[in-house]
């Protein structure tokens, strides 16, 4: 299993635990319901999408015998996805004065970059047959 996949899966499990903790908090005390949008994105992006990125990078057809496509795009994806999630976890539920808006926009742009990076790695590998 390549190092990028191991990192994706380890981060994914961390976000799953974090999301479930937030879920428990919301279930115990309705005052925590403000976490709902963050909870949703931690589970869907941090856990599910990150897991898919890691496994797809590992198991989809290779571009050549010893290469899994343009690997620099996967490193970019790994960094942007997780930086974006951290920004969102900090800036969405908590009041940071005037910083919330720019940080949330930066978070969304990181996620857009991660989606583009993953696509740039996987797209050319489709149909290569290896």
């Amino acid at each position: 299993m390549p190092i990028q996949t191991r990192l994706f899966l380890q981060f994914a499990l961390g976000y799953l635990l974090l999301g479930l903790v937030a879920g428990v908090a919301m279930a115990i005390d309705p005052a925590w319901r403000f976490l709902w949008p963050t909870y949703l994105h931690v589970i869907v992006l941090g856990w599910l999408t990150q897991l898919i990125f890691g496994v797809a990078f590992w198991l989809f057809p290779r571009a050549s015998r010893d290469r899994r496509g343009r690997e620099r795009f996967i490193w970019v994806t790994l960094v942007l996805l997780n930086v974006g999630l951290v920004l969102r976890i900090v800036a969405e539920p908590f009041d940071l004065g005037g910083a919330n808006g720019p940080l949330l926009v930066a978070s969304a742009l990181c996620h857009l970059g991660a989606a583009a990076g993953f696509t740039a790695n996987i797209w050319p590998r489709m149909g290569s047959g290896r």
Partner: protein
Amino acid sequence: MPRVTVVLVRASLVHLVAGAAVGALLMWAKAGYQLPALVARSWPLHAEMLLLGWLVQLALGVAYWILPKHATVPVRGPVGPVMLAALLLNVGVAGAGLGQVVNHAGLAAGGRVAEFAAVVLFAVNAVPRIKRFGRNQKSLCQ
């Protein structure tokens, strides 16, 4: 990797990038930047593209590829229903997402019906392949 899987996975990647772009616009609007009102209420399109267009479509594409094959040709079952499912799913995501954004109940409902029909058509192919690997059946991921 079969052709239908390539189509489904590539379409799911398009939805991933487009859905993330819609999400960035939504966040831009949420942060207080001036954007058209239509953008600010486009979250149903964002959700539809990422949950069905990306996640479900990717799962269908990979399932068609890796589920156990039949012993006789066509080894992955008839391809027609799966191609039609891919078409209906993408039309459905667009219809259901845009229909909710522009408040057009008929378009939204039509999109949802198309999504439902897509999954039924996919199941026609997939259900007979959900079985034990047999002696005369080929294995995974070819």
